[in-house]
């Protein structure tokens, strides 16, 4: 790890000023950045520690929206009563991520900005367009069992590893960004980029911007939601496929549906096509499968990950089924 200057920012104004130094990076819980620095994937000159910023609360706004401070720890957010009761899929997504220790460290803002876990990204001996633009992609034609099935390009097939963001995408969360230039808000859906021919550009955040908050809309359907994560061991592993879903059924007909997939693209994948297929359809296994099919029609496999298309289809169907018939038989 390169030696660096360390600045601990007491307030947002100091933080966003400090980040304008060339080679400066924000440091949150460190669970991703410190690991990448140790592997020399990241080599900042200055590290601006933002963990002492007073952005660690969940507030209910007068209009019913929820504002989550970006320095809130993942574990604290998952344990928060408002999140558990009003947005269970978000609590479940957070709890499905990493381990108890890492959730105690990782911040909400940092979770949004997680880097891919593609093994070639962290191996400096490998070619990776994301790490070193123009060098090539060793995942294509290499080990890509856990690569993207949506939105991949010839330059990159990496996925975004966050669980939390999958729920946030389904919930239509908003990201608040602040810099010396001011404050702006962006929808989380679309915040993460598809690789195209520039996979090094991962999100819409500018180099000098700080995530200060995440806002959730007041969304009654979210109270009936769940997050399902499918992975290679029972816990403490990244998703092969995950599903965040909320479902409202009246008189046997779907009246509202929210669906997003994780582990399938360089962004949390909001399943708009599936949502459209569900709206107004009878709440049956058949409809759930059709909705999954509608979304997965656009999926494209790499050499080793065709199974993820079928897995996603089944995970979506199963998650909707379980939401509709909780505790019901398979």
């Amino acid at each position, binding site marked *: 790890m390169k030696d660096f200057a360390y600045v601990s920012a007491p307030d947002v104004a100091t933080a966003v000023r400090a980040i304008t130094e060339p080679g400066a990076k924000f440091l949150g819980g460190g669970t991703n950045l*410190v690991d990448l620095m140790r592997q020399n994937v990241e080599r900042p000159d200055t590290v601006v520690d933002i963990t002492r910023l007073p952005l660690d609360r969940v507030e209910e706004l007068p209009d019913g929206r929820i504002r989550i401070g970006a320095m809130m720890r993942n574990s604290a957010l998952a344990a928060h009563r408002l999140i558990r009761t009003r947005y269970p899929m978000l609590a479940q997504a957070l709890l499905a991520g990493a381990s108890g220790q890492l959730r105690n460290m990782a911040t909400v803002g940092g979770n949004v900005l997680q880097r891919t876990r593609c093994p070639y990204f962290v191996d400096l001996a490998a070619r990776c367009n994301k790490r070193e633009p123009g060098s090539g992609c060793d995942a294509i034609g290499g080990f890509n069992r856990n690569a993207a099935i949506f939105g991949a390009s010839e330059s990159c097939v990496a996925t975004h590893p966050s669980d939390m963001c999958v729920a946030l995408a389904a919930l239509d969360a908003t990201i608040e960004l602040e810099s010396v230039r001011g404050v702006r808000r962006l929808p989380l859906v679309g915040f993460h980029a598809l690789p195209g021919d520039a996979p090094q550009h991962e999100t819409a955040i500018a180099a000098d911007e700080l995530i200060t908050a995440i806002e959730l809309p007041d969304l009654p359907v979210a109270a009936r939601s769940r997050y399902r994560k499918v992975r290679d061991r029972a816990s403490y592993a990244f998703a092969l496929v995950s599903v965040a879903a909320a479902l409202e059924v009246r008189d046997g007909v779907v009246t509202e549906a929210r669906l997003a997939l994780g582990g399938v693209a360089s962004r949390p994948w909001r399943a708009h096509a599936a949502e459209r297929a569900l709206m107004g359809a009878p709440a049956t296994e058949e409809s759930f499968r059709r909705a999954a099919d509608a979304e997965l029609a656009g999926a494209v496999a790499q050499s080793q990950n065709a199974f993820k298309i079928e897995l996603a289809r089944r995970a979506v169907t199963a998650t909707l089924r379980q939401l509709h018939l909780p505790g019901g038989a398979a």
Partner: protein
Amino acid sequence: MADIRMRVNGSIEKLDVEPRVSLLDALREHLGLTGTKKGCDQGACGACTVLADGERIVSCLALAVQYADRDITTIEGVTSPLQRSFVRHDGFQCGYCTSGQICSAVGMLTEHAAGAPSAVTGDLATMEIELTAEEIRERMSGNLCRCGAYNGIVAAIEEGIR
């Protein structure tokens, strides 16, 4: 170099470390507290688990400077009946992951007592979650044990909560 202070196992320690020094290396190499173990140095095994103000964290991904003025407890500062239970239930073999398992278990029990849910909690609304073996296993899954002493660890924790 940064001059920092940190309360470690109850006593104030002064440390003069580069910002890149992890809390784990500060404990092991600077303070000689080698009870905290390095297994992967990237947050993937839990062997380096310590308590920061009572919360369990992995010290390998923590920079020491970030934890200036915090209260750190390592296995050397833990006095818990869990330690005897680990011996009684053979909750370890080689002993290398043990410090992390015990610190993690102490932190996990605090989290549970505060009503924190886990990925296997059925009813997220309740704050009174029964700490079943399944709950313990999920909550302890951030601590790998390659000797496979998982049964003994869970039994030791179950004894600890009775």
